[in-house]
C-alpha cells in the first residue's frame, strides 16, 4: 500500500515536472492528413464559413463541430454540396479518413 502510494506520488510529480516532449495527438495520421488544410482554412480568416456558394470565405474550421465538418466533407464528396476545389479534394478520402480529419480539424 505504501509502495502504491509512493508510486502515485512519483507519477504525479513526474507528469508535472516532465511533461511528454511530444504531444502525441499532434503526430497522428489524422493530424498528418489535415496538415494541408490550414493553407486556406486559417483561424482569423473568417468566421467559420466555408467555401459555400453564399459565404465566399475560406474560414477557420475550429469553430465548427466535428460532425458538421464530416457532414460537409461527405456532401462535397458526393456532390450534394456544391463548391469549387472542395468537391475535387474530398473525393480523395475514405469515410474513415474523413471522420478522423473532421475530429482533428474541429479540435485545432
Amino acid at each position: 500500500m505504501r509502495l502504491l502510494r509512493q508510486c502515485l506520488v512519483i507519477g504525479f510529480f513526474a507528469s508535472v515536472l516532465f511533461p511528454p516532449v511530444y504531444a502525441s495527438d499532434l503526430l497522428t495520421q489524422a493530424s498528418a492528413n489535415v496538415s494541408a488544410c490550414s493553407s486556406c482554412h486559417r483561424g482569423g480568416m473568417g468566421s467559420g464559413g466555408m467555401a459555400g456558394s453564399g459565404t465566399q470565405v475560406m474560414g477557420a474550421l475550429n469553430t465548427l463541430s466535428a460532425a458538421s465538418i464530416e457532414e460537409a466533407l461527405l456532401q462535397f464528396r458526393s456532390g450534394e454540396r456544391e463548391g469549387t476545389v472542395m468537391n475535387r479534394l474530398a473525393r480523395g478520402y475514405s469515410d474513415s479518413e474523413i471522420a478522423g480529419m473532421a475530429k482533428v480539424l474541429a479540435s485545432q
Partner: protein
Amino acid sequence: MTHLNRRDIVKGLLLAMTAGVGASCASTKGSSARVVVVGGGFAGMSCARTLKKLSPTLAVTLVEPKQSYIACPFSNLVIGNQRNIASQTFSYIAAVADGVTHIRRTAVAVDPDAHNVTLDDGQVLGYDRLVLAPGISLDFEVLPGYDEAAANDMPHAWLAGTQTTLLARQLAAMDDGGTVVISVPENPYRCPPGPYERASLIANYLQVYKPKSKLLILDSKDRFSKQALFMAAWKSEFGDLIEWQGLKDGARVVSVDSAAMTLTTDFDVIKADVANVIPPQRAGKIARISDVANASGWCPISASTFESSLHADIHVIGDAAIANAMPKSAFAANSQAKLCALQIARLLSGQTPVDSKLINTCYSLVTPDYGISVAGVYKPEAERWLEVEGAGGVSGASAPRDVRRVEAHYARQWYKSITQEVFG
C-alpha cells in the same frame, strides 16, 4: 482514502526528478535533438515553425541569408500592374518569435556522414536531421545566349524581386503596338501554370494601356497546365491578343541574343520588344553540393518522410524534391513541409512515420476577377507521390462568370491565408 504525509511528497518529488533525468537521458534524441533547415521559403520556413510547434524542446535552426522573403505567388500581379512588390515581401521575425534560431548565412557544404553543415562564415552546425528546402536555381548553362547578364535585358522574373519589377518596368516603357514574348521551358519547372497566368495578366494590362500590342508564348512543350481553361479565357477576355505556339509548331526556343532582342526557335528567329525568358531549372545549389540531387538535377526522396534516397537523415522538401505527381508550387511546398516536420518529430521520438495523403491547390488569375484552379490529392507509395485517382482536377470548362469571380476571390484569400500561416 490514502493519506499522504510530507515525507511521501518529498520522497516522491525527489524520485520523480531522478526518474525524469533518467527518462530524458534515454530520449536525448527526442528532447534536445538538433534540426537544421536550409532555405526560408514556403517549404523551409513552414517546416522550421511546425517543428517548433510540434516539439518545443527541439533545437531548430533556420539557415537563410536574406532578411526578408519575396514571394513568387501573386508576383504576376506585380508584372501586370495590379500590385506592388512590397505586398509580396515577408520577414522571418515570426520564426524567431517561435524559438527558431535564424542564422543569416549561406550553407556552402554538407557532410552527410559527420552530420554537419558548413556556412559561408566557416561556422559548422551539427544536426540530427537536416531539412533542405533550397527551391530552384536557374540553369543558365542550358539555353545558349541566356546568362545572368542577359537576364538584365530579357528578365526571367522567375525568382521574385528585382527581376519582377524589371519586367514590369519594361512593359510600362514599351510602345503601344510592341511584341511581348514569353519563352517557357520543358517540364519540370517551378509553378507549372505560372507562365500562362503571367501571359494572362500581361495581356490584361496591354489590353487597357497598349491595346495594339501582341503577346506571343513560345513553349517547349505541347500541353500545359489548365490549357483548355486558359485558352478559352484568352479568347473570351483578350480576343487575339495572346498567341500560343508549342513544340509541334517549332516554337521551342533554342538560343537567345539579348543584345539584338531576338529568340531563335526550332523554326524561326523572333524579334521582341519585351522578352521574358523563363529558363530551364534544377534544385537549388546546396542540394547539388550536398549530393542529394541526381542526374536530373532534382532530389529523389522516400515519399512519406521526404528523406533523401541518397543520404540518410537529410530531408528534401519543396520545389527541389522529386515529388512526382505533386507540382512544384508554394501550396505543395507548404503542405510537404508540415508533413515532413511531423514525420521528423515522430522519428526523433522513436516512432515510425505515418502514412498520410497530401493535397495541392493552384489558383491562376486570368484577370483580377477571373480565377481558375487545379487541385489534386496525393498518396505516398515507396519512392513515389501518386495522384489519388478519381480526385482532383480543374475548374469546370463551362462554369459561369460568377464562379470565375468566386475563384479569383478564393485565390486572394488563399494568398493571404498561406502567407499568414508561413510568415505571419
